[in-house]
């Protein structure tokens, strides 16, 4: 804000109530609110209060916005009925209306003052300096904050050369996107021969979601005019055009008002300010063609022709509008000019980076808490814009990518979060600055879908002139559609790259030259998502309609038909519900207790209120079914082939089940431990998964003819072959604890989490001390901490080197652990362990989050000299698990210590030997292990001569149902599930969760939106 005040007369104790009348707030009745405020002020007889309006604050999400000056009170979401209260309470009684204060999305704190809102605090508003502070329809308001002083200075004391020189020195680059030096551009035009020259302001803001130019024109139109007049003076133009799309009626109206008022004051027209310089401005309304943002197309449009680009050279500076030398600048570029002239080039160039000076305005949108217009110094890292100003990703979702530069820009993954925002860095990363669109994408965004969206925009907006742009983008779009519909070929990815490069290289104008960027950058950074669509017909974000019937079942690694069994639960048909689940997995009950339910994260109900409690419903169905869901037991006739499965965890047993039941193979499962179940038995504590539940499901597996040999460790594959096994499935899991890598961890008080949990599960006596530390942040760490509490530890502390947000453990389990009295210390890492006075001491060091690593999370880095130490009795290391693969098996092992397989078939390098589950993926979830078991069963069955089809029909096929009616759903969350009181829990290993009552379950099942029945 200018030192001169805010333009609304803060002297004499006068107060001003400013209501935003930008397009956003106006659409929420801000005009009526202003009238109401005026009426209330008059009714209250407040002579010293003035009600006025401003342009956009750039925080439209919070609109309608009312600011009371001079105190700077910031009211958000103001409604018509609030006018009375604001006037009475705030202006008369001096009590600001707290319920209308802005609430910080991170801290949830109510913030009274404009200047304290984080969204604004980190911004540097030069271009938007007056937006929201002055009345855009009153030139005096602009003049009172120093408006037209720059023009006066230029006309009274500077030659055109000096102006150009000043702008050159400022380092200002075109804010339209290409970033060419503004001063140099002016110079070309200034030097071009000819008396008739034109100055054009490009206000054809066409990017979807971008509204910075509009806001400037609506909020501070005079600054655009002032910049334009100065530019015209510098290049020697006496006529100018503002090319503004007709979809901006308010901007156009305010431009006309500004022009008229500027003419009245002698800032425009003949002999401006007595200098002899003449300049007239016309507003040309564009018809909303994106390509008209391209300068040659824009000029064609002004000339009354179809807006199509023409080849350059000649450049507009030589031959532009009506073939006369012409200079075109973007609204934001021009809005920067009065500041540069006013404050000087040197001051301006001190802002920003080496090559990119000044500030940049972004329209920050997408999956970000604070969306709106953001102006920051060039070079600010993306992270600060997104996470500080933007308040991060809402709903606890994970950041996936940011798309900058509008539809012509690219998508950058998390690894670029620390990149500075400036022309060169963005270009190097495969995106562009563009005119300043910034769309934040979270984990629920499909990158193929994003590419498709942006490309469909540019494809539609192509003027059609160049063949590569017109037909290349269409061809690319067709391919993307195919991929999104599951009709893609793996070769299509390279074809997209080839076509994208051809379109970029072969197109005449910026539109075509950049249109493939969203596709190319998503392939560059998210190729796996494309492959997933093509190879697995799987959309990881569960977005692509052609592949995803219901996001829950699509997201389920085993593809369980969730909506169908939920409907059956709603109808109290629990046996059938279990049968539906059993069609895809042999562990309905286990999953009902322990699945980490990725299905729920994508549940569409979550967009209304809360996701359906799918896992709890599954458990309810399994608990309440009277049968195992198998119906009449059918086992395929013997195939005469034999399969050996090493490991009786979920992967091994799943594979065994299908190979025996559907393949008809003779299956033997070898288990090294005394009891079967693998991690289900030895890893998951009983309070989560009761033994009888597991036993019942393993019994079913036995029932289909699987033989399980416990206490049998297999050391060599050859031995199995000798025993006549035709195929071997290695599913030994990841049962070895990973060392913390700190000095002293070998002492006996330091135990590894996996061993601890295994010993406890297998009924071994385990003795822990009173003070227990658990190092790590995963599910195993939580399990260990809660187990420790149950084993009698008084104080259990989890030490985790990152913050809670990065913790991989399931949120609800973290909460349950805390309820059970587990203390959590974040940003702490162990450094050294030693015995002292009968205790164990551990030296720790505080951490802070630094740059983003390849996982997209910020890397923890030690804080120098922050070491401290604490005494414990036992330290549990829960920093990771690794497979133990006997070396003599001669299998290829990759860098992470996992087995190397062909991910399409799970085949190892050794003929007839397959592997899956944690031994391949590293420690993962039960459902992922089951999915691996299914995949292995398919591959092995095929290998053994079967069809590889393992799906079976166990439940009655559903009667065709009408698509759900699209009515407004009432908001109602899921029922709170009863669980043991925290005090009770730690006494023993009883199951914590009590499960739904029947009434709760049916109620919950009815919340399902039945996405799978929706018509396409």
């Amino acid at each position, binding site marked *: 804000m200018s030192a001169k005040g805010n333009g609304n007369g803060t002297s004499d104790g006068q107060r001003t109530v400013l209501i935003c009348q930008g397009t956003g707030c106006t659409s929420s009745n801000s005009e009526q609110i202003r009238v109401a405020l005026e009426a209330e002020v008059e009714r209250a007889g407040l002579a010293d209060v003035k009600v006025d309006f401003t342009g956009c604050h750039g925080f439209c999400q919070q609109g309608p916005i009312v600011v009371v000056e001079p105190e700077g009170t910031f009211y958000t979401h103001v409604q018509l009925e609030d006018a009375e209260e604001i006037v009475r309470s705030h202006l008369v009684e001096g009590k600001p209306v707290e319920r209308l204060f802005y609430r910080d999305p991170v801290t949830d704190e109510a913030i009274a003052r404009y200047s304290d809102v984080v969204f604004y605090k980190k911004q540097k508003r030069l271009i938007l300096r007056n937006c929201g502070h002055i009345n855009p329809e009153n030139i005096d308001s602009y003049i009172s904050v120093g408006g037209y002083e720059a023009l006066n200075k230029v006309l009274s004391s500077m030659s055109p050369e000096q102006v150009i020189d000043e702008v050159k020195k400022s380092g200002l680059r075109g804010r339209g996107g290409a970033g060419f030096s503004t001063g140099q551009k002016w110079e070309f035009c200034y030097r071009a021969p000819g008396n008739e020259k034109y100055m054009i302001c490009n206000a054809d803001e066409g990017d979807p979601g971008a509204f910075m130019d509009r806001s400037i024109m609506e909020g501070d139109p005079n600054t655009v005019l002032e910049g334009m007049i100065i530019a015209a003076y510098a290049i020697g133009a006496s006529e100018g055009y503002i090319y503004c799309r007709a979809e901006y009626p308010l901007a156009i109206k305010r431009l006309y008002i500004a022009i008229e008022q500027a003419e009245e004051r002698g800032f425009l027209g003949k002999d401006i300010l007595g200098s002899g310089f003449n300049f007239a401005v016309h507003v040309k309304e564009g018809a909303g063609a994106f390509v008209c943002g391209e300068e040659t197309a824009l000029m064609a449009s002004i000339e009354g022709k*179809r807006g199509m680009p*023409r080849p350059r050279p000649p450049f507009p500076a030589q031959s532009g509008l009506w073939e006369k030398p012409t200079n075109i600048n973007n609204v934001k570029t021009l809005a920067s000019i009065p500041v540069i002239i006013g404050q000087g080039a040197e001051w301006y160039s001190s802002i920003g980076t080496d090559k990119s000076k000044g500030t940049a305005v972004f329209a920050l949108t997408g999956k970000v808490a604070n969306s709106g217009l953001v102006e920051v110094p060039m070079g600010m890292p993306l992270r600060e814009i997104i996470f500080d100003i933007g308040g991060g990703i809402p709903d606890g979702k994970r950041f996936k990518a940011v798309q900058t530069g509008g539809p012509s820009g690219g998508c950058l993954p998390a690894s670029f979060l620390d990149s500075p925002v400036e022309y060169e860095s963005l270009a190097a990363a495969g995106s562009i600055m563009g005119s300043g669109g910034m769309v934040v994408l979270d984990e629920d965004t499909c990158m193929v879908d994003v590419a498709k969206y942006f490309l469909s925009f540019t494809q539609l907006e192509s003027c*059609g*002139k160049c063949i*590569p742009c017109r037909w290349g983008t269409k061809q690319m779009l067709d*391919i993307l559609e195919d991929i999104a519909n599951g009709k893609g070929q793996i070769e299509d990815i390279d074809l997209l790259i080839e076509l994208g490069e051809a379109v970029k290289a*072969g197109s*005449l104008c910026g539109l075509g030259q950049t249109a493939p960027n969203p596709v190319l950058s998503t392939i560059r950074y998210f190729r796996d998502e494309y492959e997933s669509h093509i190879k697995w017909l799987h959309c990881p974000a569960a977005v692509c309609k052609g592949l995803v019937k219901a996001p829950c079942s699509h997201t389920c690694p085993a593809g369980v038909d969730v909506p169908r069994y939920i409907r059956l639960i709603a109808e109290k048909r629990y046996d059938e519900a279990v049968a539906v689940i059993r069609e895809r997995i042999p562990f309905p009950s286990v999953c009902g207790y322990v699945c980490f339910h990725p299905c729920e994260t994508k549940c569409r109900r979550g967009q209304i209120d809360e996701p359906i409690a799918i896992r709890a419903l599954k458990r309810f169905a399994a608990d309440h079914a009277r049968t195992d869901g198998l119906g009449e037991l059918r086992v395929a006739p013997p195939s005469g082939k034999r399969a050996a499965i090493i490991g009786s965890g979920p992967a091994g047993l799943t594979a065994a089940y299908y190979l025996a039941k559907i393949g008809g193979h003779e299956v033997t499962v070898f288990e090294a431990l005394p009891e079967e179940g693998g991690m289900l038995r030895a890893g998951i504590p009983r309070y989560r998964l009761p033994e009888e539940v597991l036993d019942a499901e393993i019994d079913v597996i036995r029932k289909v003819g699987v033989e399980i040999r416990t206490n049998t460790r297999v050391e060599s594959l050859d031995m199995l072959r000798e025993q006549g096994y035709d195929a071997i499935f290695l599913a030994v899991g990841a049962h070895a604890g990973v060392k913390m890598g700190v000095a002293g961890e070998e002492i006996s008080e330091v135990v590894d989490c996996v061993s601890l949990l295994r010993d406890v599960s297998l009924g071994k006596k385990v003795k822990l001390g009173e003070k227990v530390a658990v190092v790590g942040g995963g599910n195993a760490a939580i399990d260990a901490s809660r187990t420790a509490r149950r084993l009698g530890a008084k104080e259990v502390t989890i030490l985790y080197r990152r913050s809670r947000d990065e913790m991989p453990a399931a949120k609800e389990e973290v909460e349950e652990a805390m309820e059970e009295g587990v203390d959590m210390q974040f940003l702490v890492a162990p450094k050294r362990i030693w015995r002292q006075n009968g205790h164990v001491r551990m030296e720790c060091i505080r951490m802070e989050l630094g740059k983003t690593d390849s996982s997209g999370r910020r890397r923890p880095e030690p804080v120098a000299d922050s070491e401290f130490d604490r005494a414990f009795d036992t330290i549990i290391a829960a920093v990771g698990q690794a497979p133990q693969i006997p070396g003599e098996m001669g299998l290829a092992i990759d860098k992470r210590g996992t087995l190397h397989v062909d991910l399409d078939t799970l085949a190892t390098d050794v003929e007839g030997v397959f592997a899956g589950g944690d031994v391949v993926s590293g420690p993962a979830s039960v459902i992922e292990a089951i999915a691996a078991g299914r995949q292995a069963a398919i591959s092995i069955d095929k290998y053994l001569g079967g069809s590889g089809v393992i799906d079976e029909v166990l439940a009655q096929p559903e009667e065709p149902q009408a698509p759900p009616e699209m009515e407004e759903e009432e908001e109602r969350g899921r029922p709170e599930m009863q669980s043991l009181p925290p005090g009770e829990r730690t006494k023993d290993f009883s199951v914590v969760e009590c499960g739904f009552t029947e009434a709760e379950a049916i109620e919950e099942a009815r919340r399902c939106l039945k996405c799978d029945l929706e018509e396409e």
Partner: protein
Amino acid sequence: MVTKEPTVLEEKKLDTVTLTIDGKKVEAANGATVLEAALDAGIYIPTLCYAPDLKPYGACRLCIVEIEGMRGLVTSCTTRATDGMVVHTETPRVSQSRRTTMELIMANHQGDCLTCAKNQQCELQKIARYLGIEQEHFDRLRKSTRVLPIDTSHPAFNRDPNKCILCAKCVRACHEIACVGAIDLAFRGYDAKVSTFGDKPILESICESCGECIEHCPTGALVPKKVKQAASEVKTVCPYCGVGCSIYLGTRGNKIVSVRGDKESPVNKGGLCVKGRFGFDFVEHPDRLTMPLVRKDGRAKDVKVNGNLRDVFREASWDEALDLVAEKLSAIKEEHGPDSIGVLSSAKFTNEENYLVQKFARAVLGTNNVDHCARLCHASTVVAALAAFGDGAMSNSIADFAKADLLLVIGSNTTECHPIIGRTVRQSVKFNGAKLIVADPRSTELSKLADVHLRHRPGTDVALLNAIMHVIIDEELHEKRFIEERTEGFQELAATVRRYTPEMAEEITGVSKSDIVQAARLFAGAGKAAILYGMGITQHTTGTDNVKSVANLLMLTGNMGREGTGFSPLRGQNNVQGACDMGALPNVFPGYQRVDNPDARLKFESAWGCSLYDKPGLPVTEMMGAVSQGKMKAMYVVGENPMMSEPYLAHVKKAMSKLEFLVVQDVFPTETAVLADVILPAAAFAEKNGTFTNTERRIQKLNKAVEPPGEARPDWRIVSDLANKMGHPFDYESAQDVMEEIASLTPIYGGIHYDRLDNYGLQWPCVDRLDPGTPILHEGKFTRGLGKFHAVEYQPPAESVSEDYPLILTTGRVLEHWHTGSMSRRSEVLNTLNPGGSVDIHPNDALKMGIVDGDLLSIASERGKIETPVRITDETAPGLAFMAFHWRESPVNALTNDALDPAAKIPEFKVTAVKAVLAVLDRAAQDNEFFARLAANPVEALKEYDLTAEEKAAILSGDVRRIEKWAGKLDERLKTWLVARLQQESW
């Protein structure tokens, strides 16, 4: 939006530049593009959107090359070749990009090559083959399944958007060459397509059917409906207007199967109009005369042209027919003297034939009674220009219109009557920055483009031009030095125009004085100005004065004898210039050598071996009078159709029917031919050799492409045979023989020999073999020495509006038809595009008359009456009606005034006082007093009528049934008209 920024280009001023393309040193003209440089050097670069006659466009992206020092792939069609540039046209990147682009096009291209009209001639096919597009590679792409409707609305061609590749050549040709803009690109992205305004069928657009789009289309998207590959091509000259476009006729068997413009021609540069492109099927029309016909004994001379000729005529052998003609003419000459015979030559046939016809009249018949239709179009030009400059022809060349700073178009609807010149005017205005002033009572395509449109009343040209000159002299904008050195009579002119103040002119012409002043300043301010005019100037009783005023204005501003300036009468018929040059005029021998000049006569007497008459003969407009008076007994009409083209047709018909003997020689049984005693079948333009002289005095060669039908013969052969039969040997083996004789006797044609005409012809004067011809007359010196100003006073037209005839009717032509329509009305495409006549009436007048668009009107003048539908349009002015004279169903010359310009004997076609009423009203008026009153004065108040109480009551109630009781049964249209009319009445 991302944009790239300029880099400053240093431009060297060189005539040529040298660059390296694919390792080869190549020289190119400075300003040439890299593509042009390569193509000139024989290095092929594929392209779909480049055309040498269109501006660089850069859309197809196939002509990309790599240029050292330039980033990325550069389109060679938009990049200027510069000195030292190193270009690579076939790098792997270039090839890859081209192939991808081609694959994209082909994936979106629908249609089967084998059934495509463009097969083998398709650029797309050619480039696909050149790039070696592989099926396997191409199969990766998604094929378009979109099928768009084909526009078949146009009678001559189809538009198939499925075969369109959006190279926009058609659009650019329409904008840049035709300057029409009937089509443009519309919609965006994949939906982008070539579209008319509102995406309507092309026939409903402003398309002028010139076919430049088809000519430029590289694929089968725009193809003629009837396509046949020509077996061979003959270069010849278009037989329509006086522009004289050079064409190639493609033939197969004995048929014309294709036409294309000659790209090398300086006249049309490959361009053609709708008539030249689609109007040659008349040659094969079944109406063609194929045998000599002799009137059966006792058959009256009033049969309609479309009646069965065989009822009236019988076929005869050439010998019999020619013997009969020779015998009859000899007998009449013998009995009534040579001047009892009149000969009409034709502006439609060749110089050689005109020469022979006038020679036949003068040498064989012994009369100077020879004339042709130039009398009806530019007689006044010839008279006035000879007086002012000493030459009766256009002073400069068509190409000069592109070089002028200002063009004044007066009395010419150039884009319709001389489309290829009209196109040049449009191009000059749109692309060369030329100013344009149009003086025309009607709004025309050019007036819409004009800086000033002077919409003067018909027949007030002298007042208008005098006022313009008044302003120029008053403001001292005239070229004093030019006037002093090169002209005479300025003082008299200045004295006369002094009285023509803009105020006075406004009174006379209806043009605001400010427009007059603006036009004067613009005209005088132009460095190079040319005046184009047509029949709007010449066809007046003051035609000669009008032309003199044009000449005055040009000399006053020094716009003569220089490039880009000049006097440009736009000649109407293809060879009207040649017919005049050849002496098919009553007062001059070939080359404007006067018959009353003894030296000239002596020369021709000795050459032709006979004595020649020294008194000028009768112009065609006076022949009719002579026939009526019984002084003229016989006429030999060769290729003319006075029964359509002369004014006051009733009079003409009466006269023609009265002739003792009439011979008509033509290609069709014209309105005149059916009155003949003997009809001789002639060959059409495509069936003979000879020369035509176009409006810019360019003598061009006509070459035979097909054989004439039946026994039709070239006119030169028929005339020669007849002369031989009449005892005067015309011993010519070929048209070329005739030209040799012409050259020997006609100084301005002295250097014209067939062997010199093969390229672009020669412009006369061309006095000997070494003379390259004369593109610009009066350079340095006028032909007559000093240019002469003629002080001319304004005279009103012969006829003005009256109570009985409250409208002024003016006549002209339309784009699709030509003259009396004997050719164009027999062309299927032309006649489908514009099948019938109409009269243009201004909406204000239409409102007064209570008529709606399409109503059949009865138009009457003092001399006749016709019926024609009305077209209500503000292209005409209030009080002004317009009709073209092509329509035999409603021949407007039945109405026109035969009042003549005293010097040039040209009739005043352009101003006729007429009345127009609804035809059904007019018919009802024949036998009903009430309707007669209404028809005579439709706006008169009905209460003034003397009506019975019953009649009054019926009218008052507006009850048509009751009116019918006393008025008789009324036509439906008359009923609605009457009801509307009665509602207007205020009792």
